[in-house]
């Protein structure tokens, strides 16, 4: 340790921060670069692909007009920067959503290195070794700052390489970095306020969601509501207007706010005891509910929070997608826009193509959530909680399949709710049949989601250490599904992804054999994983 002898460090000090920072960066040496590459790569690919679709300025103008006229689109993605300038249209869909993603990553990073360390009892260890009180917070903050800076530089470089001007590229990338910075500050503060890492993460992520929704209302209503865009940290990026007026000074707001939040976090930290938060846990039940009886009950209890949030998000996205489709008229006047939409979904009816694209997106998102739920088994094993269950009369296969089953069921519920919500807002006279039709259409993606669930479970079943690899594979499948068709990937690449083999409804053909084959392969994979899990050591 760089600190003096134990006890010599004063309470309010940064001593040992350098060591902690190096350790934190080491722990993030794979995760953060991969995240940065994924975000920057997505932006660059979108810039390259979308601009190729809009060679004619007139058609560009038509698309711009359609977007600006639709409150639903404005709410979902924010306004276009600089009347259809190069890059603006390409990155329109990514601006706010990418910023939100960067914000969530920043939250996860800072909580992982502050509250989660404290929950694990390691902060106490570090403190007793002479590290100052402020050192963990500072190290986590600097780790997140490194992420934000890296994201900004890499994304800007990637966009410039994709053919955008350096000014717009840098300004756009900086809106992502700024969002990461602000929410790193939010995460540092909730880490001090909350009593546990889980609560800290939840509070800060709710902050991201709130910021997204506040600016959504501001953008959709426009006019006098622009103040709602200004109060939302995710609205600042829009105000930078990276491809239009380019207000660089707005980019000074995020660092200033982040520093203020850091100060607040340190103030709380100085005042509270290690291992506690400002929010005190309420006492709970003294006896378990009858539902909490076996591995399934436990898995439901563990995952219900995740699935509740995800299902709510699916309901919102589904509803927005449904209402957007009923406003597609103006937007689809452009031949090029028509091509954009059909490129996303195939040669179906226009509004159906849009829904197919949205349901595909929902299926990708659902498979990520389901994979996260399945891979919770790894955390159960690592913590020793799996030992507690498996040293009771519970077979390994039963425990394994309980987690897989609960995760899969959660994925189905999410898809069904997303589809039903789209049906409610899409249909007018025939709402009932629309709900049934679109619920079924969304559920047609289920085999792909189940496939990802089984694949994740099998990876875990083979070896707990394979979990990072499992995430890479899942991310690869989702990326191929989302970007492969747009980028014209060769068909053998597309065929690797289960999302290619499910019916693309509404409108597409239903290939029963392909569906059954996907499900059969999924079951075999899960069976192999379960068998391997029964044999291997728990560690």
């Amino acid at each position, binding site marked *: 340790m760089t600190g003096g002898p134990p006890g010599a460090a004063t309470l309010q000090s940064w001593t040992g921060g350098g060591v902690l920072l190096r350790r934190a960066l080491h722990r993030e040496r794979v995760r953060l670069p991969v995240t940065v590459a994924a975000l920057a790569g997505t932006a660059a690919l979108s810039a390259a692909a979308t601009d190729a679709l809009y060679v004619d300025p007139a058609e560009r103008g038509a698309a711009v007009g359609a977007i600006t006229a639709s409150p639903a689109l404005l709410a979902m993605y924010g306004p276009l920067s600089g009347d259809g300038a190069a890059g603006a249209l390409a990155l329109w869909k990514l601006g706010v959503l990418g910023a939100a993603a960067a914000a969530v990553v920043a939250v996860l990073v800072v909580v992982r290195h502050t509250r989660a360390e404290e929950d694990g009892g390691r902060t106490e260890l570090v403190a007793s070794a002479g590290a100052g009180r402020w050192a963990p917070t500072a190290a986590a903050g600097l780790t997140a700052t490194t992420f934000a800076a890296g994201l900004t530089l890499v994304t800007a470089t990637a966009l410039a390489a994709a053919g955008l001007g350096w000014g717009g590229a840098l300004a756009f990338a900086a809106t992502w970095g700024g969002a990461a910075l602000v929410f790193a500050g939010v995460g540092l503060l909730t880490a001090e306020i909350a009593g546990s890492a889980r609560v800290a993460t939840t509070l800060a992520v709710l902050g991201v969601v709130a910021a997204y929704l506040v600016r959504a209302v501001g953008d959709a209503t426009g006019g006098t509501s622009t103040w709602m865009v200004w109060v939302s940290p995710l609205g600042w990026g829009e105000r930078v207007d990276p491809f239009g007026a380019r207000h660089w000074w707005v980019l000074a707001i995020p660092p200033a706010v982040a520093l203020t939040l850091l100060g607040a976090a340190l103030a709380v930290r100085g005042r509270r005891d290690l291992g506690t938060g400002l929010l005190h846990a309420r006492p709970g039940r003294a006896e378990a509910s009858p539902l909490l009886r*076996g591995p399934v009950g436990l898995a439901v*209890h563990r995952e219900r929070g995740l699935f509740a949030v995800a299902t709510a998000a699916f309901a919102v996205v589904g509803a927005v997608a449904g209402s957007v489709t009923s406003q597609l008229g103006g937007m689809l006047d452009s031949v090029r826009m028509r091509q954009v939409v059909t490129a996303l979904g195939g040669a179906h009816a226009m509004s159906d193509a849009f829904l197919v694209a949205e349901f595909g997106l929902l299926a990708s998102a659902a498979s990520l959530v389901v994979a996260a739920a399945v891979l919770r088994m790894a955390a159960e094993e690592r913590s020793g909680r799996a030992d507690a269950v498996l*040293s009771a009369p519970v*077979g390994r296969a039963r425990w394994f399949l309980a987690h897989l089953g609960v995760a899969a069921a959660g994925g189905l519920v999410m898809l069904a709710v997303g589809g039903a919500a789209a049906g409610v807002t899409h249909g007018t006279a025939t709402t009932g049949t629309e709900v049934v039709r679109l619920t079924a259409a969304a559920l047609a993606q289920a085999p792909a989601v189940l496939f990802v669930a089984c694949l994740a479970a099998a990876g875990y079943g083979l070896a707990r250490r394979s979990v990072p690899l499992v995430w890479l594979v899942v991310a690869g499948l989702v990326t191929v599904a989302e970007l492969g068709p747009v980028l014209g990937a060769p068909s053998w690449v597309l065929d690797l992804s289960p999302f290619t083999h499910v019916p693309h409804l509404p409108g597409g053909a239903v290939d029963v054999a392909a569906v059954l084959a996907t499900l059969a392969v999924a079951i075999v994979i899960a069976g192999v994983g379960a068998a391997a899990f029964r044999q291997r*050591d728990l*560690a």
Partner: protein
Amino acid sequence: MSADVPADVPVDVRGLVKRFGRTAALDGLDLRVEQGEIHGFIGPNGSGKTTTLRVLLGLIRPDAGHVRVLGGDARRDAVELHRRMAYVPGDVSLWPDLTGGEVIDFLGALRGGLDVARRDALVERFALDPTTRSRAYSRGNRQKVALVAALSSDVELLVLDEPTTGLDPLVDAEFRRVLGEERDRGRTVLLSSHVLSEVEALADRMTIIRRGRTVESGSLPELRHLCRTTVTAELAAPVPRTDDLAGVHLGEVRGRVVVCDVDPAAMDGLMRRLSAAGIVRLEVRPPSLEQVFLAEFAPTTREASA
């Protein structure tokens, strides 16, 4: 299995080997626990106690050796065996958003229900607040939750991995009483520890391991044969010579006070010699387990000091 081993031997392990990568955590370990006893399983940190217990639970697979638990195969018969045994891990980790009471009931439900009256009594005796969420529990409280869950289920064999680490002295004492009651009810207990006094007071028999091998096994009186009694005597006359007595190891002489370690066989000869010089005050300390332990683990220092 061989016919001379009765099916009801709770734990019968011979020549157990378990490797993690290239290091052998267990290297030919033997462990036999008899029906109805509290068996102390002792070794320094890293000697392989937890690894052995996890093999018994079927959580990890042995590389070699003979392992029978309650007459069954730890891995193949895991589910049936686990109905008859309960395990408290060394480092108890609980579900952070469940309360202690919920965890106890959940683990009980996995076994098909627990004795509610017994659960309530144990919660009371261990001074546990069952409404606190697990994330707020100290290590000792997490340990109590796991102990209550294990002790209030109706099983034949309790496997406890360093169960008292983190318990405060009052609860520790209560835990010893409870464990004595469990033995009286006919349960078998396998209790690992590096806290020797705890095992010394509780265990009927014990097994001492070191670096994954069994060093000694037996009851405390049996193990005491291994070890020298410490005799401190104040004499009326100058201290006589003892270096001609085999088995007497002179510690120090301060004026007319002599301190020495004595092998059991040499006690009689030493006493005659001392009483000839006139004993004013005599203190005879039987070997504590601590000394047995040190004798096993530091034979060279012992030799050097003798």
